[in-house]
């Protein structure tokens, strides 16, 4: 049966509505696609910005030198971290007047990451810390390796003045036997009426520093079994360069080797007790065995 004019008009109107709806839907899909592309580009831009920041950070050569310290020259690093076994053995316990670690009785073991921890708290301005860093760095280098050791001097306003030394600020230490935390609590730069704060102490470090170190720099806590402060006279170091000191460490006849390597042997003996005499070649060496005789039981 033929359609009436009214039916034809209704069919045309319906077709137009469908076409318009399809056009709207297509436009909406296109708009959404455009939004997804814009959103994806935005995310990509953010990722690129973050990647640039990471690249800048990783290629950033200078270490964090808020204390004004420079990185230790290779000759100093080698001299400190590569003292020969024969030198250690010849020096043995070192100079008789040197201070030995004091045993801590009944303190809970200080550990970190499942390993015994050696904690150093000092300040870059402090001349006694300047002396103590040398044997500590020498001893720790027998159990692991440092990265980013710096060189600096103690304050020119203190006595003895301007003692050449290393700094643990900005340095990292890696060892499979122990963990070392080295905090330079204050720098050697005066800000206002005091030396600037450098490395912040955790509440646990602050407690140990107060309880076992009497809040006095330097404080070396060997796994809460022994503590030690300054082991030899910092005046021995004045007037020398870090390179000269580092070279002297490998000559067992020099007073500096006797003082620094001897102190390092004593600390090594204490650390060996924490690491169950590992590594064996270090802990059973004659120099360490001789130094262990001076070590009070902890």
């Amino acid at each position, binding site marked *: 049966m033929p359609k009436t004019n009214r039916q034809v008009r209704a069919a045309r109107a319906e077709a137009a509505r469908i076409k318009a709806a399809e056009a709207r839907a297509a436009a909406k899909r296109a708009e*959404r696609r455009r939004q997804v592309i814009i959103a994806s580009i935005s995310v990509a831009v953010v*990722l690129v910005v973050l990647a640039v920041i990471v690249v800048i950070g*990783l290629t950033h050569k200078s270490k964090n030198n808020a204390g004004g310290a420079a990185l230790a020259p290779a000759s100093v690093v080698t001299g400190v971290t590569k003292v020969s076994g024969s030198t250690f053995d010849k020096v043995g316990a070192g100079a008789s007047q040197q201070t030995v670690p004091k045993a801590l009785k009944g303190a809970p073991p200080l550990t970190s990451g499942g390993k015994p921890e050696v904690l150093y708290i000092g300040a870059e301005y402090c001349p006694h810390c300047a002396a103590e860093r040398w044997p500590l760095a020498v001893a720790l280098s027998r159990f692991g390796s440092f990265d980013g050791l710096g060189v600096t001097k103690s304050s020119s306003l203190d006595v003895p003045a301007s003692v050449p030394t290393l700094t643990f600020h900005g340095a990292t230490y890696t060892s499979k036997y122990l963990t070392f935390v080295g905090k330079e609590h204050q720098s050697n730069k005066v800000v206002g009426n005091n030396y600037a704060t450098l490395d912040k102490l955790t509440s646990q470090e602050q407690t140990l520093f107060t309880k076992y170190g009497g809040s006095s720099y330097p404080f070396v806590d060997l796994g809460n079994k022994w503590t030690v402060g300054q082991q030899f006279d910092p005046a021995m170091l004045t007037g020398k360069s870090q390179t000269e000191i580092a070279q002297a460490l490998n000559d067992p006849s020099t007073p500096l080797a006797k003082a620094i390597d001897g102190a390092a042997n004593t600390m090594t003996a204490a650390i060996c007790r924490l690491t169950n005499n590992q590594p064996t070649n270090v802990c059973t060496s004659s120099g360490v065995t001789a130094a262990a005789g001076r070590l009070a039981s902890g």
Partner: protein
Amino acid sequence: MSRTVATTPRAASPSVGTVPRWLPIVTTALSVLGLGVAAYLTFEHYTGNSTLSCSENGLINCLKVTTSPESRIVGIPVAVLGLAFFAGILPLQLPVAWRAGRPWAQLRLAGLVVGVGMVAYLVYTELVTIDAVCLWCTAVHVITILLFAVTVVGTALVGGFERTAARR
């Protein structure tokens, strides 16, 4: 084929289109993960980092980062800021929030823009100022970036940007 959840027809406020089911699930899971890591870092912060589980291997040194002066911003520990961020963003990533109107989508995006900005600042601070990287913090950063990416693309997928575009 992905299933979708239809928006409620009764929504009076400007609403978004159909929300793929995977979208709120992924964003909620990422938010919960971020909240967990931020809670761990906050716990460590307030217990002196005594049980912080992280190796100290060259550039990787969590303790150095979490005890640095930069670990606080205007006196507030960064770990706490991270916890607050994920605690705030989590409700906005729930399925009900995705189905809600545009103000919630805008709030969600604004929060994540702030979060990503914070990540950029913290990554720069770790690498340039502190010279150490905290793996737990990196985990939080990665989660935040993933959350940002999924949320931005997801918002576009459900037409969350369309009204703004139509006004132009």
